[in-house]
């Protein structure tokens, strides 16, 4: 300003580009990897560590690995690499256990139909409501008859022959689908005003939550027959299903209770003031909000359950991990634990990662809070 008689005239500052070393690749590197000597040192150490571990791993898993052949001798040419031949030869068993060869289309159809329906619900298709209904009602029944057979001209395949990934998926999907509603009912019961209902729910939840899954499974398989009349015999798979479901339901109940408590009191009052009764209030107003809040914890429980299904081996079921473990004890393939367990880990990871991605998608889609 030249003279003080002139009124100050505002001129807007035009936008200027940010300094060159704060944007682009260079900016990113400076900001994230090399900001300060300590972080630079850590970055270099980390790169060195990766250099030490990654190339040998790639070499073992891919470059020197054997993929061909039908028996052990194929792998002898390259002892430093993984022997994936083992997995390839045993792949059928890993997926189906001892399910008869000619009937394996049945678990495949079950899986493909289930997965297809599930994936279609993630996208906004017009028939979504019906798909969900199908998944929750018709599908479990159809899947049971298809897998077990004995009707409609299908040969019967007793559950003792089921194994591998088929058993893992049957146990975990049933566990997830059945434990969810039971958990919700338990959570509502625990917050009920009726003392008997409340105490019953608290006792159940605390009892089941207070013991390890292994002991629940043991009880289901060893103790249950003691209480049942002579000759009444549950099959092993059903016992495991009941055990896993009740166990997860107890956890689910606490997760849902957390959600119910997080819904503001005003929502209960708003619903009550409109004349909505208890069940309508819960189903239309409270539960949709409560469940949405705890999706991450629900999925956490499901992922836990999925991995815990590996414990069903103690009641004599052959889940995917147990099949692999047994296979590595086979005289023809002895000493290939590394390949077996790496492959098992990979399979579990694929399923768990898929669940976590799906849950993120659901969370995003259900978010109507418009928080900024």
């Amino acid at each position, binding site marked *: 300003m030249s003279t003080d008689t002139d009124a100050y005239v505002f001129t807007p500052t035009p936008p200027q580009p940010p300094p060159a070393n704060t944007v682009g690749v260079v900016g990113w590197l400076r900001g994230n990897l090399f900001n300060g000597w300590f972080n630079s040192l850590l970055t270099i150490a980390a790169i060195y560590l990766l250099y030490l571990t990654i190339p040998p791993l790639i070499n073992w898993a891919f470059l020197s690995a054997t993929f061909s052949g039908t028996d052990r001798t194929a792998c002898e040419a390259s002892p430093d690499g993984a022997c994936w031949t083992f997995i390839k030869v045993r792949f059928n068993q890993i997926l189906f256990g001892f399910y008869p060869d000619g009937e394996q289309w049945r678990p495949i159809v079950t899986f493909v139909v289930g997965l297809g329906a599930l994936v279609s619900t993630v996208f906004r298709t017009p028939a979504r409501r019906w798909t969900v209904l199908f998944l929750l009602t018709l599908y479990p029944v159809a899947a049971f008859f298809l897998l077990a057979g004995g009707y409609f001209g299908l040969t019967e395949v007793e559950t003792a022959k089921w194994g591998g990934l088929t058993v893992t998926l049957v146990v975990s999907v049933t566990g997830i689908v059945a434990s969810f509603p039971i958990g919700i009912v338990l959570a509502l019961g625990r917050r009920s005003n009726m003392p008997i209902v409340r105490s019953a729910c608290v006792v159940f939840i605390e009892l089941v939550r207070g013991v390890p899954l292994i002991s629940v499974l043991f009880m289901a398989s060893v103790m249950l027959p003691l209480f049942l009349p002579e000759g009444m015999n549950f099959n092993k798979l059903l016992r495991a299903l009941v055990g896993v479901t009740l166990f997860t339901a107890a956890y689910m109940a606490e997760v849902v209770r957390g959600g119910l408590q997080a819904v503001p009191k005003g929502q209960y009052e708003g619903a*009550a003031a409109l004349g909505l*009764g208890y069940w309508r209030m819960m189903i*239309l107003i409270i539960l949709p909000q409560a469940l949405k809040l705890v999706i991450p914890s629900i999925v956490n429980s499901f992922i836990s359950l999925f991995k815990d299904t590996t414990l069903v081996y103690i009641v004599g079921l052959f889940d995917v991990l147990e099949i692999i473990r047994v296979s590595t004890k086979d005289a023809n393939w002895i000493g290939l634990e590394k390949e077996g367990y790496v492959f098992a880990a990979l399979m579990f990871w694929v399923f768990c990662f898929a669940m976590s991605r799906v849950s993120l998608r659901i969370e995003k889609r259900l978010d*109507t*809070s418009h928080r900024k």
Partner: protein
Amino acid sequence: MTTENPAIPEKLAVELVDVNKWYGEFHVLRNVNLSVFKGERIVICGPSGSGKSTMIRCINRLEEHQKGKIVVDGIELTSDLKRIDEIRREVGMVFQHFNLFPHLTVLQNCTLAPIYVRGMPKKDAEAIAMKYLERVRIPEQADKFPGQLSGGQQQRVAIARSLCMSPKIMLFDEPTSALDPEMVKEVLDTMVSLAEEGMTMLCVTHEMGFARQVANRVIFMDRGEIVEQNEPNEFFSNPKSDRTKLFLSQILH
């Protein structure tokens, strides 16, 4: 005006007789007696903690009174759940914090109770909802979620939501206290137009301009008791009790 009328039952919208309530040891409502006639507009004021919210929340059983009698629209409030729901259907309530359902759109907020409580077909419920959303002057927001609206708009939706149940009585629990100052007027305007149509209203509010404009009676509560009630001009210009005078001197600058 109507305060000393003999209680004619069929003209009474709400009647409280010797109502008492305690929170633990704390005596929040002490021998509250109040008769509200159909079409009457009552403004309830008083210092915070005086029991005014508790009193109107007893009318639709969001709070339970422990002694005395409350009769709403001819039905006595007891612990009978059926009667409570019956009363809640006829009594609309607007809250300080709106209490809209954030997972439902504005339109769904309005149609929910008519559909699930009154058993109205969805189409009819939507038509009624749109009618009331137009009345509160936000029909264009029908498909938005409450989180996308301003406080004033949310409160107007809350009013429309209550009106969709065609209530006989409306309760307002500090409807403008949580609003930014520039949004208070739009909500008050809506309430004024509602009052002009003859709705029976009980409003807990500190908006004294509103009280002067629409109230038939102003009730002053302090420490769980109705200390004074009078028609607005008398109430403001000629308060009788010292507690009322003190309160008015504190809120009217």
